[in-house]
């Protein structure tokens, strides 16, 4: 349970970090370390070089300009959870973050780290997908902006190069009569979820759904949006029938299975989480019959 030897680098700027990554062979980026450190200690990861990006101030912080939110990739999960300004615009972050590991891991863990590790059950990549967010990365080829839709290439494989680092996540929030909620089921608090669901919706003045987004985590290698069901829900009242429409979005999905959880069981759990999240999101948007 001891890490292999490596050379340690601590760049002070994004330019220094990318220059190091361009030059070094077999280097790993150390963000919050809550996934990389266990992988080092168990010697699943055997880098020759570790590039610690924890001392680059411009990578951290939450900026809110109108409806646009920017979260620095190295912003700690605990700071995102505690941000009252973000809570006022997107309360689902605080709600979902309470399921991310434990206080001790959220103290160090970062949003960029979670996106780049891309565990199938991870909550933060799910939220970025829920908000149609963009991940900004930088590398030897300059800056790139990658839409959340295109972020997950496969199992624990995000669309970022080994010589690139994530710098920020941006997304827009809705205003008006809106609500959002996150639900997940895990065997123990803080474990990776069997499945989770996030819902945000906006109601029109008549109380019908103007806009809705629904995401599932844990069911596939990357977060899944239920786009067809979302379209079918627009214009409907957010009632019990609407929840059935939402859940019908799961029907065509091919769901992951593992030794503990069959695909059918995981799909069932995902449906239950989706229904709960939908109901609470509708209630917080001020709907009466959800």
């Amino acid at each position, binding site marked *: *349970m001891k890490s292999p030897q490596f050379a*340690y680098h601590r760049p002070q700027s994004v330019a220094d970090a990318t220059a190091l990554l361009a030059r070094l062979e077999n280097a790993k980026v150390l963000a919050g370390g809550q996934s990389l450190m*266990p992988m080092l200690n168990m010697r699943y990861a055997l880098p020759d070089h570790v590039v610690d990006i924890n001392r680059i101030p411009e990578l951290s912080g939450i900026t809110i300009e109108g409806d646009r939110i920017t979260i620095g990739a190295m912003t700690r999960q605990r700071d995102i959870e505690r941000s009252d300004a973000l809570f006022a615009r997107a309360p689902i972050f605080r709600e979902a973050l309470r399921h991310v590991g434990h206080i001790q891991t959220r103290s160090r863990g970062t949003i960029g780290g979670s996106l780049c590790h891309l565990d199938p059950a991870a909550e933060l990549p799910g939220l970025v997908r829920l908000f149609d967010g963009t991940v900004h990365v930088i590398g030897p080829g300059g800056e790139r902006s990658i839409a959340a839709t295109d972020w997950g290439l496969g199992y624990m494989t995000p669309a970022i190069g080994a010589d690139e680092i994530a710098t920020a996540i941006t997304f827009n929030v809705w205003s008006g009569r809106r609500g959002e909620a996150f639900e997940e089921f895990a065997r123990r608090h803080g474990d990776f979820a069997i499945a989770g669901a996030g819902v945000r919706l906006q109601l029109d003045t008549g109380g019908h759904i103007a806009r809705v987004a629904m995401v599932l985590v844990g069911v596939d290698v990357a977060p899944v949006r239920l786009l067809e069901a979302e379209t079918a829900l627009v214009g409907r009242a957010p009632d019990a029938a609407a929840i059935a429409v939402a859940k019908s979005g799961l029907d065509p999905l091919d769901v992951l299975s593992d030794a503990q959880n069959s695909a059918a069981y995981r799909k069932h759990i995902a449906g239950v989480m989706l229904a709960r999240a939908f109901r609470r999101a509708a209630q917080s948007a001020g709907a009466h019959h959800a």
Partner: protein
Amino acid sequence: MHDPTPEAGKARHAISLTVNGTAHAVDVDPRQHLGDFLRQTLQLTGTHLGCEHGVCGACTVIVDGAPVRACLILAVQADGASVTTVEGLAGKEGALHPIQSAFRAHHGLQCGFCTPGMLTTLAAFLADNTSPTEAEVREAISGNLCRCTGYQTIVEAALSAAQTLRGEG
């Protein structure tokens, strides 16, 4: 498995940090995690290491006010930090921290293996929130495994320490 480049890992790094109020300036091996640094280099063996991959919470220490897993942060990363371990919770002349007194009064430990991590986690948690609900206490220690107590006495101790910290104890 491929060979590391010849110099990989050879260079030690000079760090300075404060542990329980005492300043230290030491050269560290980059791969040494903070838990091993505290136990082996500083001989502060109060911090326990159970799993060394972030699942048991025994190694929890407070770094710049935040509870962290000492097995998941490199010692070199603590350069410039202020660290509090279980040895640093008691006040001057050994007066126990309210969470330590409460553990004693409520039998919050049996074998004691999880205790340093429980105490540091709860000390940091109660510094933030002196009026927690029982559910909040349970969530706060959800990252700390105890194989002895069944947690009940730990939760009672935490709620009682919160009362003391509010000046109601």
